[in-house]
């Protein structure tokens, strides 16, 4: 049975020699720089590895330790979920909505608006201007503004007070989030066959919302799936903006996320095995979310 399947594959490969040649360079590099490191990391998650000595096999104990003894990890888990389930869907919908709205504008205006909306993602670490905005002394724009208009008497410690940290991070993340998926959606909208709309108009589509649901969204399903994966990975992997804006570690771990926890163990404490276990759990969470999301997306336009 297996031998037959193997023979079938072999003849299939022989027939499509050219296709294999086209595919080989990418998958060789992908294997070496992505697949093997990921597999290695998963294996390392079952070991104690301090990057100096040879890894020592310890079975499930990294995972057990994470859930039973590591209180900070549970805080990180909670923060990450809050973050992902609030910013993820909002930014996904915003990406599509803005791409769609812009698409209706005349070309020149569309180009300008695309640039402006994409600006926060294009310019590297521009989110640092939010630090000036929410700076804790009266130099910060936010405090200066609120004091001037008499809302508060003394400056608020925006980035040090656990009450405000997570919401501020969410706002910044949303502001940054018109990125990869936004551009992919814009390009996707260009790919939708124009004649479908004419046909739709004749078939009795009455307004732009019906047009969106019955024509545009189904035609863009591949891009929507792509966007979902990108949004999931960026919503769950948030770390950089937390580290740069709030500091690392944050006060009371109020802005601690799974990835900052991983960075803590991987690059500061040199416990690579433990860090790998964290990465594997994060991976499992993302995969689960992705499966559910893709299931929903398949129903779009029905």
């Amino acid at each position: 049975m297996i031998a037959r399947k193997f023979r079938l594959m072999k003849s299939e490969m022989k027939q499509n020699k050219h296709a294999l040649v086209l595919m080989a360079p990418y998958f060789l590099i992908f294997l070496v720089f992505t697949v093997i490191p990921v597999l290695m990391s998963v294996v390392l998650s079952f070991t104690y590895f301090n990057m100096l000595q040879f890894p020592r096999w310890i079975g499930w104990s990294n995972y057990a330790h994470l859930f039973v003894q590591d209180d900070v990890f549970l805080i990180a888990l909670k923060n990450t979920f809050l973050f992902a389930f609030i910013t993820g869907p909002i930014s996904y919908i915003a990406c599509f909505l803005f791409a769609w709205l812009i698409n209706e504008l005349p070309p020149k205006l569309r180009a300008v608006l695309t640039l402006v909306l994409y600006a926060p993602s294009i310019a590297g670490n521009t989110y640092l201007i939010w630090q000036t905005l929410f700076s804790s002394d009266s130099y910060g724009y936010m405090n200066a503004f609120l004091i001037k208009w008499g809302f508060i008497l003394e400056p608020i410690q925006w980035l040090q007070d656990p009450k405000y940290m997570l919401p501020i991070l969410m706002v910044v993340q949303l502001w940054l989030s018109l990125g990869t998926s936004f551009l992919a959606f814009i390009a996707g909208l260009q790919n939708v066959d124009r004649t479908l709309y004419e046909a739709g108009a004749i078939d009795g589509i009455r307004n732009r919302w019906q047009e969106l649901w019955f024509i545009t969204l189904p035609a863009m399903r591949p891009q929507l799936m792509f966007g979902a994966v990108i949004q999931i990975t960026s919503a769950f992997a948030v770390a950089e903006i937390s580290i740069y804006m709030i500091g690392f570690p944050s006060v009371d771990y109020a802005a601690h996320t799974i990835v900052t926890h991983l960075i803590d163990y991987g690059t500061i404490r040199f416990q690579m095995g433990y860090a790998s276990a964290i990465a594997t759990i994060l991976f499992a969470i993302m995969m689960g979310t992705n499966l559910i999301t893709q299931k929903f997306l398949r129903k779009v336009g029905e």
Partner: protein
Amino acid sequence: MNVKSLLKKRLNRSWTVDILLFVLLTGVAAFMSLPLIYTINRAFMPLNEIFAFPPKFIVSNPTFKNFKDLVGIFSDSWVPFSRYVFNTFFIAISGTFGHVIIASAAAYVLAKVKFSFNKPLFALVVMSLMFTPYVTQVPNYMTISYLGMLDTYWAILLPAFGSTLGLYLMKQFMEQIPDALIEAAKIDGATEYRIYWQIVMPIVKPAWMTLIIFSLQSLWTNGSVTSHKYIYSEQLRTVDAVFGQIASGGIARTGPVAAVTLLMMSVPIAVFIFTQSRVIQTMSTSGLKE
């Protein structure tokens, strides 16, 4: 009613909603353009305005002093500044070019050639996007050192060629191309290479234009992160890495840093404007029908 007159009446659109949407878009656009305005203004601010209280957003006495100071800093370094610029452009351009070609070729096979192992391979690609790169750094360093690529351009270029985002994006777009078109080309005797290069690639032009933006942007700005790990020679460093060194000069360097930020930002923006206008052009010419 014929189609032409329908189109003239602007398909299914009402002006009230149009105006509401326009107001909404303008508001959001104003909010999103803050970093651009801030960076441009800050680059031309004299020092006393950068440290003013209350903080200034718009420059009142614009000056070129920050840029002049920057030139002063670079004239002191022992590697000529042009070398850093060359490195940055070389890495960004060849990395992007290689990635677009290699990833699209593989994406074409995944999307349009029937293999029984295409599905699992693609699933593997999507799954790998969800694994955080922080823990794969160590194995990657070992691989690169084993291959003898430490301290060469290859250490940055080769992983960039195989990044997952591009393959995924291209595959999703190529999937929309009707199979019939490719069948027809095959019957006409076109080889796989020709179908990929002369039929599929022109159709998905918006996709690879977008991919160029992503790839160039990541190679342009994240260059310093990767180059710190794998590159040790000063003459192989990129502008971005040098920017980090200037920034670590502290408060005294605030002015030049603002100037550098603007310079670094202008290249991705220029590329963006150029490619976006191409994306929009293709739309008017492509008329693909099933």
